[in-house]
């Protein structure tokens, strides 16, 4: 989370102070758009989700009880919005599918064992690599994706991620580990190829 975010007066928001609302929008529209874009993968959908997030935040500001910070609450509204849009688009997907996984305690075991850490930095963060990083996020199941994005991209703590998603800290940790391991496998396939190409070129 952005530690430089300005402090927002919830009281002023409740009283309908437009300037305070503008400050809220200015502070959080960038991160919330990034979250929506990485969740949904489509700029138009992300823009719709962003607009709905602030409209709903404004409508529901009186239900904000201050148990979490305003930013965590906004992430909660934004994450719900994105998950709802995904559900509308793909109603056949059972979004509860990882619920059971959390309970059965089975660990996702890695399947790729190439050590690609030695690749030069320009290979690791090339324009193509960045596309692969984004694509890998989109290939995660929604419930893992949202946890990874809140924790590792937006920088919420485990506790804040749990508050934003209505999950226990244990469930957040389980999903985060699974998301990270899957991403590592997906990236390993790509970087192993790059490693081979670099070796061939030498």
């Amino acid at each position, binding site marked *: 989370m*952005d530690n430089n975010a300005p402090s927002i007066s919830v009281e002023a928001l409740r009283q309908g102070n*437009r*300037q305070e*609302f*503008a400050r809220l*929008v*200015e502070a959080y*529209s*960038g*991160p919330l*758009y*990034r979250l929506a874009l990485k969740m949904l993968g489509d*700029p138009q959908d992300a*823009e719709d989700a*962003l*607009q709905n997030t*602030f*409209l709903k935040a*404004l409508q529901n500001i009186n239900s904000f009880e201050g148990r979490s910070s305003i930013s965590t609450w906004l992430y909660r509204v934004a994450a719900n919005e994105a998950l709802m849009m995904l559900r509308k688009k793909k109603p056949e997907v059972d979004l509860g599918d990882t619920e059971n996984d959390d309970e059965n305690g089975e*660990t*996702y*075991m*890695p399947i790729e*064992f*190439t*050590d*690609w*850490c030695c690749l030069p930095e320009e290979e*690791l*963060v090339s324009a193509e*690599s*960045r596309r692969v*990083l984004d694509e890998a996020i989109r290939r995660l199941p929604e419930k893992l994706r949202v946890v990874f994005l809140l924790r*590792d*991209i937006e920088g919420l703590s485990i506790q804040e991620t749990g508050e934003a998603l209505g999950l226990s800290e244990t469930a957040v*940790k389980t999903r*985060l*580990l699974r998301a*990270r*391991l899957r*991403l*590592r496998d997906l*990236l*390993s396939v790509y970087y192993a190829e790059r490693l081979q190409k670099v070796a061939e070129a030498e």
Partner: protein
Amino acid sequence: MNNQRLNCQELIGNLSDYVDGTLDESLCQEIEEHLASCPNCRVVVDTLRKTIYLYHETTRQPADLPSPVRERLYRVLNLENYLQH
């Protein structure tokens, strides 16, 4: 992967806490003992760290909101008067 006091599956189960530095010391020590003799787990730990680092590295800059998206957002929210360019 091999069998020791702490097996590979147990190591993987604690990996997020280990790379985040939030695992208790005795378990860290068991993990390090395991890693010393298990090359596959070592690769998984190193590449997992690198995976997280790469995502942090590529999103470190402040999130960017394209100007047209920002302008439409402010219009929808009736905040045009607060649009600063």
